[in-house]
């Protein structure tokens, strides 16, 4: 009987809560439906959409905030595309690029004419608070998605808020409101299953301030600007990592750098071997979570991944062991890329003394053709000189200044300790 009463109570309470939330989202939608725009990148020759996203009116009323990835074609192919907005009431017009914040995937656009009421920004509400994301999913019209604030994610270098709600393609660049209808962030990405990400509004405010002082001009080399911002961000990121004491993890006889930054997560990735296997292998993979969108061809850069791989056997003879060790000694960066986007790899190999053990190390770099100064780096080091023990590291960094990566590699190697 008690269970029955509890169930009825919960059902009534649930209905009441739903009604309250529906009212809030309806009010916010009505409050902002004229301030949220569809952002379209149009082909100059056909006049048709190449990509769409969302944006909202900010700053002086003639400025629109959106994501960089929504309008990135303007940077890569300015001669082919231009930006336009479409409001809910059908008004449209051209927009020009005023400012970029590559690290936080933000762009500020400008119109010749006033566009409407400006969205006010606000600080992030407490964790668990309801928040409301608006945008144009799949070009189906303006909508609002209700969810909760999951807080700022330190694994994204504080550049993302976790939004427990559904963002869909086309909503990127749209505003996320608190229950007062103030912008707390900008929709940016989704991991599906109601796990989405929002850029905190404080980065938007910084961009608006920056544009007031120093707006981009039409003749500026946008790729150089992107490269400069990216290098600046990555260099600061690496400096922060280098300034910290690194936690250690023990992998068999080696003491190794653990999660070297709050943005890095390490996972055990040791594969289960069959009972017949005459060896043991252990693998730990560490990777950062704060990748930065570059463009539609290169996608994301700013990856920092390192893998530890330990191999040992008491049953294989030395020749067998080394055949296996060499077979497993391979490393790759990312997926397929074309030669229009990247240069060829250039590698060199050294034997290096690390904690009184000799490592065969290789360092490779390749360059981003359109972004001079950006490189992908692959560093590997394989332990040598043991009959039945093997260990190698694969460290990869993408979209980074080569020279800035070397201190990290140096500290990495210096942090490795052979324990007896």
């Amino acid at each position: 009987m008690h269970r029955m009463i509890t169930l009825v109570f919960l059902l009534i309470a649930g209905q009441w809560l739903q009604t309250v939330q529906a009212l809030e989202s309806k009010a916010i939608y009505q409050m902002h439906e004229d301030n949220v725009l569809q952002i379209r990148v149009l082909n100059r020759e056909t006049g048709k959409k190449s990509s769409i996203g969302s944006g909202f009116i900010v700053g002086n009323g003639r400025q629109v905030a959106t994501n960089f990835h929504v309008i990135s074609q303007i940077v890569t192919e300015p001669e082919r595309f231009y930006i336009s907005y479409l409001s809910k009431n059908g008004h449209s017009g051209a927009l020009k690029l005023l400012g970029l914040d590559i690290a936080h995937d933000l762009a500020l656009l400008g119109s010749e004419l006033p566009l409407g009421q400006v969205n006010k920004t606000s600080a992030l509400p407490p964790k668990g608070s309801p928040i409301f994301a608006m945008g144009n999913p799949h070009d189906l019209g303006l909508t609002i998605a209700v969810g909760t604030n999951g807080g700022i994610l330190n694994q994204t270098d504080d550049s993302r808020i976790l939004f427990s709600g559904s963002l869909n393609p086309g909503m990127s660049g749209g505003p996320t409101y608190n229950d007062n209808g103030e912008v707390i962030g900008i929709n940016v990405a989704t991991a599906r299953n109601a796990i989405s990400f929002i850029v905190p509004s404080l980065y938007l405010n910084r961009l608006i301030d920056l544009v007031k002082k120093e707006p981009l001009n039409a003749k500026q080399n946008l790729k150089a600007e992107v490269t400069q911002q990216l290098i600046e961000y990555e260099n600061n990121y690496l400096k922060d990592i280098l300034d910290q004491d690194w936690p250690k993890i023990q992998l068999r006889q080696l003491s190794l750098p653990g999660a070297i930054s709050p943005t890095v997560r390490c996972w055990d990735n040791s594969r289960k071997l069959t009972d017949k296997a005459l060896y043991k292998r252990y693998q730990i993979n560490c990777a950062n979570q704060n990748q930065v969108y570059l463009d539609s061809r290169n996608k994301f850069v700013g990856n920092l991944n390192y893998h530890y791989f330990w191999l040992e056997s008491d049953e294989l003879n030395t020749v067998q062991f080394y055949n296996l060790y060499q077979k497993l000694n391979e490393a790759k960066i990312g997926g397929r890329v074309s030669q229009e986007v990247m240069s060829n790899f250039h590698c060199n190999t050294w034997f290096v003394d690390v904690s009184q053990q000799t490592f065969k190390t290789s360092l490779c770099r390749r360059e981003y053709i359109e972004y001079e100064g950006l490189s992908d780096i692959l560093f590997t080091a394989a332990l040598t000189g043991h009959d039945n023990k093997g260990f190698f590291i694969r460290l990869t960094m993408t979209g980074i200044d080569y020279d800035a990566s070397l201190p990290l590699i140096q500290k990495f190697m210096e942090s490795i300790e052979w324990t007896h």
Partner: protein
Amino acid sequence: MDALILEINTQGLHRYHVIDKPRTRIGRAFDNDIILSEPTVAPYHLDIICDNDGNIELHNLADVNPALFNGQAEQSVTLNTLPININLGRVGARILLPHQPVADTKTLAGNGRSRHLFSHAVWGILFIALCLIASSVDFHSHSFTNYKWDALAKFVARDTALYLAGLVFFLAILERLIFNRWEVKPLIVVISLTYLMFQLISPLIAELNYILTSHLPELIFEITWYAVLMPSIASLYLIHINHQNRNKSIGLAILLCSPLIILSAIEVTQVLGYLDNFSASANYHRDLSPLNWQIDETNSITSFIEQAQSLSPGVASP
């Protein structure tokens, strides 16, 4: 007059005729003194007239393919210095004195009766056994799990025995078709010996790669093995087992090995391409060795980083 010798070149042993009459006529027709059944020889091609003073008159009788005397086209010529080289159409010949040296000859072994060292069955059995042992060792050294004997037997049977048998069969058929000879035993020995050499040299080359921290040994081996060693083995086989002359053997060996030469050239190009052509993956030196001998010095971390600073950027494809 003294008798003379007419040496007529042929593919195998040369033919010899004694010229002991004052006048000898050569041609394709049956009423000639010496009949040359060859389509480029005229019915009546050459008259040879000898006198007692040792002079030899040569008269060309052919309208098509006139005879050449010591490389010269003459209608008639009188010579007294021997030997005289003559060309009658495609046929080469020489007029010699009986004491003058003729082409070397030797008695060749009959079909399948080669008396060469490698023609003994015991060598064939020994080398095949060694191949199977080498294959077993290879399987074992590349097995990283507990395996059963049947897996080893399957590998050896499929990857070595069947492969070698197939190769012997193919080459024996080819030999039969080209030379009308059937030399299975020497073929088994040569093929299994080549296989053994490859099995022994390959690990040494990998070791050399590691010692020098370079892909050059592998590259040189690839070129040498397929473009030099294999044609050499094939031409030696053709000379000693099939009794072909040297030039023909070398030409034929290159022809027979040309698929391997082309494949190795492609492979070498690919290896070079690791460095020159665009590749989405980094082709760094990943060889490892249980011996751990290297000629490169071992650097401190600081020295490594200093050297790494001068690592030149990757090159964009043109």
